[in-house]
């Protein structure tokens, strides 16, 4: 079996960031799942992915829908879609998924990001994003917000997925 939970963090109080450190290097890919909300005084909060403590050396292409428009943009930061904030429908959390391939290798990292901010009004966002980070092995993941803090009840779970062989499947 190869999808193994590394750590789950459930916030008991608000926090500016959530950090996963000393990530074991014996897996192939990483999957980070987030259920979160921000206390920023806004409808939505932008989220920031930092790797090994840094939010630089990223490039991304984003596809995003707001409920009234769809856009595609590029950038060079770790911004990774929106979560609902203080002015969004109460008790409503958004979700994010970050799939990082070959995280323990020396090649640059390709990251598949999906994010949805829930809101019972006209403004809510769904984001698909392809990110690339110039770096070696990932030993730390730091999730932050553009403004405000993650509220209590935010949950983040980090899994490692390990490749292998079984069942007689052939490759040619």
């Amino acid at each position, binding site marked *: *079996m*190869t*999808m193994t939970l590394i750590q789950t963090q459930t916030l008991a109080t608000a926090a500016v960031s959530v950090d996963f450190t000393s990530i074991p290097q014996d897996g192939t890919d990483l999957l980070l799942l987030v259920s979160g909300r921000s206390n920023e005084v806004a409808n939505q909060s932008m989220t920031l992915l930092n790797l090994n403590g840094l939010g630089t050396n990223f490039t991304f292409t984003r*596809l995003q829908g707001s409920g009234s428009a769809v856009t595609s943009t590029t950038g060079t930061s770790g911004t990774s879609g929106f979560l609902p904030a203080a002015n969004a429908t109460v008790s409503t959390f958004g979700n994010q998924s970050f799939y990082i391939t070959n995280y323990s290798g020396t090649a640059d990292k390709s990251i598949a990001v999906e994010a949805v901010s829930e809101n019972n009004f006209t403004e809510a966002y769904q984001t698909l994003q*392809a990110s690339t980070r110039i770096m070696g092995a990932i030993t730390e993941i730091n999730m932050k917000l553009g403004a405000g803090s993650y509220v209590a009840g935010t949950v983040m779970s980090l899994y490692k997925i390990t490749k292998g062989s079984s*069942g007689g499947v052939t490759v040619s």
Partner: protein
Amino acid sequence: MTATYTPLANTTLAATATQITFGSIPATYRDLILVVQGSVTVGGGSTRLLYNNSAANFSYVQMLGNGSTAVSNQATVNDFGGLSNTGQSSLIINIMDYSSTDTHKVTLGRANGGFVYGIVSRWANLNAITTVTLQQSTGSFTIGTTFSLYGVIS
């Protein structure tokens, strides 16, 4: 902690290749997850999936962003965007209910390269999938590109 992905096969290219085939896939699992990470020698192409060596009876809808424009289209093929020719990129493909013998097969895919894609396709075929082939339409998969196949238990 209970895990749900069973590794079935993987390969890392020691030479460029235009095609990779996973064969003899057992009907033991509910879904398949295929993860590709690497690049291609020529940009602008796409990665096509064949099931049981067939490229027939597919239909797909895709949405993509190129950094300035959002596009959606459809066709009667099983293409899943493309890897980048200028840096590391990835494909993550979920083949749902692959071993069933009484349903068409739905596949969800994400391509993460210079463009970002979300794709859904349907194979109008009731046979269980025992072979998955990835074909690069333009150029080749580069040396070092990795392909990993997982089974998801129900």
